[in-house]
């Protein structure tokens, strides 16, 4: 679930309020938004990549709050991790053209130990 909205990083642009498909965030006039409906979070990680300043952190557990702290996220270098892996920057898309998924298909066609019935997509 979404666990951290870093007030020190956040610029209050309210992109996450708009972009979260589960309507988890609530805008606050003159301030940063709040995580108002945490239990509705579907743990899709997409708010992270839409945030222009990497101020959001989603823990992988969709059912329990882990209680991870902002310091721990910083220490582990996890802010913006999904965006970097995709090639998205500052809330903008990128990197789809560098996706090496085609190599998986090739690999699945050769030398599969237990022989799947059809190749990987």
């Amino acid at each position, binding site marked *: 679930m979404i666990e951290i909205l870093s007030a020190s990083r956040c610029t209050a642009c309210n992109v996450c*309020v*708009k*972009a*979260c*498909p*589960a*309507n988890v965030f609530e805008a606050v006039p003159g301030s940063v938004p709040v995580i108002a409906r945490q239990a*509705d979070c*579907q*743990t*899709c*990680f*997409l*708010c992270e*990549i*839409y945030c222009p300043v990497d101020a959001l952190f989603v*823990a*992988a*557990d*969709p*059912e*329990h709050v882990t209680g991870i702290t902002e310091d721990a996220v910083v220490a*582990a270098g*996890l802010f913006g*991790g*999904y965006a970097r*892996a*995709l090639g*998205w920057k500052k809330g903008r*898309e990128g*990197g*789809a*053209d*560098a*996706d*090496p*998924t*085609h*190599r*998986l*298909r*090739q*690999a*699945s066609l050769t030398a*599969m*130990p*237990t*022989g*799947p*019935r*059809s190749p*990987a*997509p």
Partner: protein
Amino acid sequence: MAEPIQLTSDVLVIGGGPAACWAALAAREAGCSVVLVDKGYVGTSGATAPSNTGTWFATTKERRAKLIAERVKSSEGLADLRQMGRVIDTATQHLHVLAERGYRFPRDDEGALYIANLRGPDYMRFLRQLLVRAGVTVRDHHPALELLTAGEVVAGAAGFARQLGQNWEARAGAVVLATGGCAFGSRILGATGLTGDGQLMAAELGARLSGMEFSSQYGIVPLHSSVNKGLPYFWASFYRADGSAIEIPPGERFAVLARESLSGPLQARLDRATGAVPDALRRGQPNCFLPFERAGIDPFAQLFPIALRAEGTVRGTGGLKRADDACGVGIPGLFAAGDTLERQDIAGAATGGGGPNASWAIATGLWSGKGAAAFAQRLGPRAAERPVRPAGQVGLRPAADARALDPAEAVALVRAEMLPVERNFFRRAPTLNASLSRLDAAWATLRDHGQGEGATAFRLREAAALLASSRWAYRAAAARGETRGMHRRLDAPAGTPALAHRLTLAGIDQPVLSFDRPPQEAAAS
């Protein structure tokens, strides 16, 4: 509450996944004005956005024939050859249209465009940009709650703008339902809005359903995560809690894992991935690695705990029954697309995941958008002036006295009945009937007493839709007294040739079930 927001267009599209976007684009290209309302945000909502989807396409005759032959086999007699061909051809053409319009497909090592995979967040964001460029009016966070009719004809929809705290009413010459499948409240990628709303809204007007018994597909997730992506497990070995390896005969992975999961925790390791695979997996499917990175696990070297999560009709095949090639559902003015429709045409009794579903969303999106446009154009510009009536029932207009009901209770019940492996993956008449009696009771309570305004109405309608899809699924599962594809009856473990037919459901309150060709007749012929 303030006056409802009024929206008017030739075509109204309900939903915000790929099927809805392609429908809106097709209707716009046919010259119609289009309003699209989504429960979430177009770009992030639906099953595709967080996931990545493989596609089903063919650029040669040989490949096309091979794809169809593979599916004929796995569908166990329920697929439709002609529709498979139509879907492959339409999707292939439009994957190239995507490239022409600027979607940045990668190139493979030979330099050829690689259209076999769509990166979810990039694809959905790109479709949003196409909608805006085409002049489609996009309304995010505008869930539809019910359809509006003018006589026997669908003439719009009404809903709640949840960030504005205001109701909305949309008038249109035709409506496309592209609200996705029903995930039964499972915590899988993209499932938050997938409560089966479109199926309920259409069934309230008499639309029928099919394939609902094929709603028992499960996906593997790293334990305590939402990431039900199957691809990495291609290269996985599976282990019991004591570290002993689980033998998996070809094609038996889910059945074996499901059985093992009943006797203890499961573990996996991606230890069959060698050479270029680990790097391609990490960079090509980064969402799969988020749970590992965040837990500090190296999945190629270490064992990690996994679980099986129900995927409802999203990777199942049930949904609204298509009445014609334009994706009408038998109600004038109403069309449907994507996971809202049943997908036995392309998948039969097996999952349509792994490519067919993504291509189905493209193809049926386009066909329904075109069909809706033609219908609206026949009505002419004054269609929006017709007097309309709201068609929603359960959760909005109680049959008896209104009471304060907690929608969360119904959602919890649906989860308890539909998600456990021992109830839904492995099915038996007594457990199906026991679940049905509890689901029916919850349905009756909601039908007789459910009523709310604004956000409460929205949640009550989601609860009603979840209950409706659950009841259809288990009724169909109880009626199909055999094992076929993903529908596994422990009390009838073999397939019965006489039942190699689709099962249709009509009605919500007391659904009437019938095999498309009566089994007796089939047996006699």
